[in-house]
């Protein structure tokens, strides 16, 4: 095995381990509680327009930074906007960014990774490009890209996606490289299966379990990166509330109005926690062979 496959394999192993939580699926209740929490947050975010008391963009200059009251259950922000309405609505975009970034980077990474893993000719070139993309610090790339395209939702997702793609590619490639050595792949070759069939039917399914884990990891970190970008002034347009920019806007008021950070932060943490737990459980369910030796 060459050194690169070894390091990618250990990186892959690293990743799958990274995402695993205490007890994995055996924790039993864990994933179910996680799914419930996530479901509640997703539904609450999607349905936010139906029940939040105010338009999340509606400003009342004269009632800025108020404490919790009957009118404003969580108080108001520096624009006099209702924090509760904003936080609940903010979930929509944050989750969209998370899911969007995960889906896009997994899809792109899967295709590129399959190609790289299977066609040796393309491998070297693709992997050098991927190495380069990986070496560029994600946050700087993101800032630059957002400056380039303006902080639209799309460009934030792209900015978050670009540095993630090479990681997915490496993962997929390493799975493909090791899976193609499996006797059942040799058996398929012996049975006369054509290459595309081997690629898509035998090899690709091997990548699903680690990809789900990776995807949940990307989803979680995308939501966080969006928050960091907002902190640095390069996040999604300030008109669209997201947990990230609510927190970023609230950072100045940390000492006088901690709720601005606390509430979106709480939902964000709960989400990331649940997503991780679910990803972990999904891996165990998807791949019966990945029973961990926990002795």
């Amino acid at each position, binding site marked *: 095995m060459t050194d690169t496959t070894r390091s990618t394999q250990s990186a892959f192993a690293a990743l799958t381990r990274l995402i695993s939580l205490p007890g994995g699926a055996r924790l039993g209740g864990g994933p179910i509680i996680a799914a419930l929490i996530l479901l509640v947050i997703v539904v609450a975010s999607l349905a936010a327009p139906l029940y939040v008391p105010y338009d999340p963009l509606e400003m009342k200059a004269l009632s800025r930074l108020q404490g919790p009251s009957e009118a404003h259950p969580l108080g108001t922000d520096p624009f006099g906007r209702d924090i509760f309405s904003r936080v609940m609505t903010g979930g929509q975009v944050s989750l969209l960014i998370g899911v969007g970034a995960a889906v896009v980077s997994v899809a792109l990474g899967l295709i590129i990774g399959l190609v790289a893993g299977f066609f040796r000719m393309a491998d070297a070139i693709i992997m*050098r490009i991927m190495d*380069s993309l990986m070496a*560029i*610090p994600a946050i700087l790339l993101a800032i*630059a890209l957002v400056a*380039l395209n303006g902080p639209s939702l799309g460009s934030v997702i792209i900015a978050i996606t670009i540095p993630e793609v090479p990681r997915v590619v490496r993962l997929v490639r390493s799975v493909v490289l090791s899976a193609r050595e499996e006797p059942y792949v040799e058996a398929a070759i012996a049975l006369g299966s054509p290459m595309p069939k081997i690629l898509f039917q035998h090899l690709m399914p091997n990548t699903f379990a680690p990809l789900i884990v990776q995807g949940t990891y990307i989803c979680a970190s995308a939501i966080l990166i969006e928050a960091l970008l907002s902190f640095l002034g390069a996040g999604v347009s300030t008109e669209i509330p997201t947990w990230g920019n609510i927190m970023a806007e609230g*950072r100045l008021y*940390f000492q006088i109005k901690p709720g601005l950070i606390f509430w979106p932060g709480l939902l964000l943490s709960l989400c990331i926690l649940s997503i991780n737990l679910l990803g972990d459980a999904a891996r165990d369910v998807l791949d019966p062979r990945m029973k961990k030796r926990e002795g």
Partner: protein
Amino acid sequence: MLGYILKRVLATIPVMAIVAIFVFLLLRLTPGDPAAILAGDAATPDQLERIRDRLGLNDPLYIQFFTWVGQLLQGDLGTSLISNTSVSSMIGNRIGPTINIALMTILISVALAVPMGVIAAWRHRTWVDFLVMSFSVLGFSVPVFVIGYILIQIFAIELRWVPVQGYVSPGEDFGDFFVRAIMPSLTLATIYIALIARMTRASMLEVLGEDYIRTARAKGVRENVVLFRHALRNAAVPILTIIGTGFALLISGVVVTESVFNIPGIGRLTVDAILARDYPVIQAMILLTAGIYVVVNLLVDISYSFFDPRIRY
């Protein structure tokens, strides 16, 4: 081994070249005009044009690119468009704080996270394990700046144990450096600890199930020896890997931490440069961080063979 290192070093050349082209193009496609920044709000178009001319911003892109590459090959990183100081001296002045904080972060993280992970794996599915893992998930899901604010609030403002902000170089006054660096390092370390502890635990769990651990126990070896001599070294490769790839995370975190704790490091330098379109600085910084990332991961790869004699290059 030497051949391997040589090969890896050579392999970084195309990587850095791609980074360079990519960054250059990205920047030149980004809207923004360093001349306008330099001149301020009320400059006339004619004045701007003259400044642009002088900065070479009116040359065709490929000329600008080759000028830059030519300079680079001579070891010249160029001159800041805005402050007119040489980029290498700017980086020279600012890299110290970042490196010192980063090193301290890594030290703290490894010193705390590895034992945490080992113990969690050893006592797995007990409350110790649960505690360690809860912390690590939490550390993973709270934005860095929030952690920074919380630490400042508690340790600098309420308890007054450490200063709120600022940086002193360790050469100047190590004690002062330490008290000032401890909070930013801890802030950065949270996410790193979370990562490493989790990886250590998972890796150790795997190793603890191996036959040779049973062999060690069958020899009547004490538990701490089993854990740290027999198991940890075998678990080291994925842990090292995550330390290496986590370095990218560290770089992102540095940008934010330097803002929160007012540390004059390269993270802020870069963000400021991006916001001011100070092309030579941005280009140099991104090349530099990419280079550091590549080198760190090269070192990590080479260190594998130190921990695991089966890996020979």
